[in-house]
């Protein structure tokens, strides 16, 4: 089964992206990524740029609405996502707990929906 790990980080984590090579958060992420790949469970994923770089688009009553900034105005913001291939939610939660973001932000684990994908893609 595939699970999406949606990674929510506080402002400090985004600020730390430009930190030096010895930054523990960067080191932790490098190690985490390696562990996922070597465990053979990494399907895909990407970090996202900081929330300020987001632009949110809606169509309201047929009219375009474009807003600078991310979808929700929360302290913790989406920083990236990872898709993992795992046998169960229990296993996905274990990997979520190891994610460096879990100890300073939050990681939402949600199963990918192959059924809806099939309906959409035919």
């Amino acid at each position, binding site marked *: 089964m595939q699970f999406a790990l949606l990674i929510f980080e506080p402002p400090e984590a985004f600020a730390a992206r430009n930190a030096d090579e010895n930054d523990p958060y960067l*080191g932790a992420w490098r*190690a*985490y990524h390696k*562990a996922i790949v070597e465990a053979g469970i990494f399907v895909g994923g990407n970090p996202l740029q900081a929330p300020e770089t987001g632009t949110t688009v809606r169509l309201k009553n047929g009219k375009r609405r474009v807003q600078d900034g991310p979808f929700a105005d929360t302290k913790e913001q989406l920083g990236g996502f990872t898709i993992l291939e795992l046998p169960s939610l229990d296993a996905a939660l274990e990997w979520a707990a190891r994610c*460096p973001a879990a100890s300073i932000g939050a990681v939402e684990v949600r199963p990918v929906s192959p059924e809806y994908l099939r309906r959409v893609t035919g």
Partner: protein
Amino acid sequence: MSGSEQESAHRIIHRTVERVARESYGRLVAYLSAHTRDVASAEDALSDALVKALRAWPRDGVPENPEAWLMTTARRSIIDHVRHEQVAKASEPTLALLREDSKEPNMTLSPEFPDERLKLLFVCAHPAIDPAMHTPLMLQTVLGLDAALIAHAFLISPTTMGQRLVRAKTKIRDGGIRFEIPQERELPERLDAVLEAIYAAFGIGWDDMVGVDQRGRDLTEESVWLARVLLRLMPQEAEVHGLLALMLHCEARRSARRGPDGRFVPLSEQDPKQWSLPLIEEAERHLGEASSRGRAGRFQLEAAIQSVHAERGRSGRTAWPAITLFYEQLIRISPTLGTQTGYAAAVAEAEGPKAGLAVLDEIDLAAVSTYQPYWAVRAHLLQRLGKTPEAADAFDRAIGLSEDPAVRKFLLQRRG
């Protein structure tokens, strides 16, 4: 009574109810479910009784024997519930309870009721129940811990944990699991399951993965308490002494595991002056008790290993050859990833990193893809052998598998 006097009287009663609940929960649940096998109903009835106590005791005063009051009230609640449902469908044990009740229409408070917790502990660890649920069941039914807290500790959503607990209790009620101490023949294996479940709770608490529970204690304290209860009920069992000795040795070193700034301090770098001497001495007494009973076992061996580590406080050295000997015996009866990894680390200290690595190489790589300690030990040994790129890789695996930021930081610094 004035308004504020009434308020503080209420608060005192509230605290009394809480205290009795805390201290007596397991005994009450065990006694209430021992005959009906219906643990869930016993818990519900006890919850009901606690609510009734909060209403009745401020009005009528706290009873002389609060525990007996709760027991009697809960029993009545179960009987009333059964009467309300179709009595014809009641199980034989529940009917027996009804018959017993009809003999004492006044329900006089019996001052003592037997301690059935030992049977409840064996039920929780019964082979027919999903092994992953042994510890959660114990924590809830014997300790009365909140299901959500248990869920957090096991990294499971509270809803899922709730469902699994219901399923396990239904199995106990309907699956013919008997509330009894196992026969002599099956006792060692059944007891081992109980000890494993208690130790699993200790392990989770040990990794600081849960905060403090509603009793103000953490899981390590709760599991030590469980082991002490078990010891009181089975004082002649060597492995129970062994488990307690093991946990007390670990607890003795707890505050030495973290520096003042919260950094991780490995065992080899801990200052023995920070270890608790009283806990070590108590652990040693239990280890002595265990060995005098002449029935060796897994927990005694693990405790013996910790005892050797504790010796460093007196001798200034760690007797690694003794530790490797204990591990060799341990692997024969309990060849887990933990014992094999521990053995490799001990061999490395006693005979050199190459010998330690050879032990690690015997472990199936597929089995350790998510086992952090293997990678931490491997990284350390490769580094000692000067194999820098392989060591860096192994460090990365260990860091990526660690949940504790302090451990990650420590390994990152070691990695370089």
